[in-house]
């Protein structure tokens, strides 16, 4: 894997016995000796530490926060200007057809917007911002790593390093001093659990990770459990559940577009694909992302075709993420269905190894969110 990039925690992953796999051009830990099932349960019941340093950290800076926020609003259909200082929110870049180019997190850091983007999209996202934003500078942060500490014990663990961690609410952002180092911390994550994402100078990342792992309640968690945790939490994985062929409305992400950016809002539209997106917000779309529970125990994974009836010839949709949900104790999936069928308790059929097996449309998330609001 010599051609792969390594995060600052690479040696620590190897030391911890991780199985390393290529992901988005990086060598990343898919699991540790504990195994995916136990790692998943660890993050749901205690706390797990994830290396997410492959993700992109970007500072968008103008004359002041308002300049940067308004510039970004030309690419993102979200109320960025209305973010209070040290608050964060979810958003996405859209294209002219109303498709989703990437999803991201945006934070108001006083004089700039701090943006975290997906690893697979980060080069494209940065190029997109650099060529389309005016009056601001777009700077990728390459000397900081990103750790996530997730789970019900995350607060008590992080508060041992800086008690201010306990004062943060869900989607708050703060600068904390952890292990003697200034870290940019948000109370958020990608597991459905309470927790933090921690931007730490790469030179100190391994030392901070070791200090967190020294706590009895913390274990390292790989990409395998990260995927099952986010799937149970009903969270989209870019390139799978959302992409340029899905819109905010088809992806069931209307909630992320605040009223001020919608038709009749003070800053309505003004982002790529606004005509499509605003029309769908008002009128709905033909298809919709839903949660699906396969009956029985057999997982149905990405690509499984869905049928309205067990003997129909033509598929009506497909699964975009699927697998076994360790906390649910059975298979879980997400996929797209015609909106008419995208109602809870509807039965559809997935084709698995030549057999048509039933699935039930189910409210997301599969496991209740455990945020500290």
């Amino acid at each position, binding site marked *: 894997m010599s051609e792969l990039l390594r995060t600052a925690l690479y040696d620590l992953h190897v030391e911890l016995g991780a199985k390393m796999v290529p992901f988005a051009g990086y060598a990343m830990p898919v699991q540790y000796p504990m195994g*995916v*099932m136990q790692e998943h349960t660890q993050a749901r019941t205690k706390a797990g530490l994830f290396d997410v340093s492959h993700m992109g950290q970007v500072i968008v800076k103008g004359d002041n926060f308002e300049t940067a926020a308004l510039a970004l609003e030309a690419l993102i259909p979200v109320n960025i200007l209305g973010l209070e200082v040290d608050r964060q929110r979810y958003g996405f870049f859209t294209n002219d057809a109303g498709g989703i180019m990437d999803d991201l997190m945006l934070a108001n850091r006083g004089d700039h917007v701090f943006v975290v983007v997906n690893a697979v999209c980060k080069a494209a996202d940065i190029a997109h911002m650099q060529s389309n934003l005016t009056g601001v500078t777009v700077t990728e942060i390459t000397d900081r790593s990103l750790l996530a500490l997730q789970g019900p014990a995350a607060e008590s663990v992080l508060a041992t390093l800086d008690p201010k961690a306990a004062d943060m609410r869900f989607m708050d952002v703060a600068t904390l001093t952890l292990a003697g180092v200034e870290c940019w911390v948000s109370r958020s994550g990608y597991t459905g659990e309470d927790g933090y994402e921690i931007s730490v100078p790469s030179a100190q990342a391994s030392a901070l990770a070791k200090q967190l792992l020294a706590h009895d309640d913390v274990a390292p968690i790989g990409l395998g459990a990260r995927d*099952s945790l986010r799937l149970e939490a009903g969270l989209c994985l870019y390139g799978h559940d959302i992409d340029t062929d899905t819109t905010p409305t088809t992806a069931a992400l209307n909630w992320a577009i605040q009223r001020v950016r919608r038709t009749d809002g003070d800053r309505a539209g003004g982002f790529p694909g606004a005509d499509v997106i605003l029309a769908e917000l008002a009128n709905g779309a033909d298809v919709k992302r839903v949660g699906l529970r396969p009956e029985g125990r*057999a997982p149905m994974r990405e690509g499984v075709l869905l049928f309205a009836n067990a003997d129909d010839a033509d598929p009506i949709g497909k699964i975009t993420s699927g697998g*076994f949900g*360790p906390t649910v104790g059975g298979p879980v999936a997400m996929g797209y269905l015609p909106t008419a069928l995208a109602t809870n308790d509807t039965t559809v059929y997935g084709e698995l190894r030549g057999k048509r097996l039933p699935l039930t449309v189910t409210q997301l998330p599969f496991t209740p969110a455990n945020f500290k609001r």
Partner: protein
Amino acid sequence: MKFTKEHEWLRTEGDVVVVGITEHATTQLGDIVFVELPETGTTVAKDDEVVVIESVKAASDIMAPIDGEIIAVNEALGDNPGLVNEDAVGAGWFFKIKPSAPSQMDSYMDEAAYTSLIS
């Protein structure tokens, strides 16, 4: 006990052969969450796909190592597929087959040969 290079084990018990996968295989597969077993009474040929294993990562097919009739399957795996991880060569067995060509067993490895294969 005999072993295949596909990491199955075969244990002769009287005139039937018990088949499962090795601990090495379960380590590679990770946590097993679902096992689809054949129906008792099915006649299978060597290399037929007879079992599907789903781990947290992916689905894998298990081939029949020999010709014969499936005379029993491990029903306990229906509710507890994790038995395969916990006790691969014991409680995690898949099926019992009555061989129709017992000499097919001769081509498989003994434990020493298998151990050297995976080391």
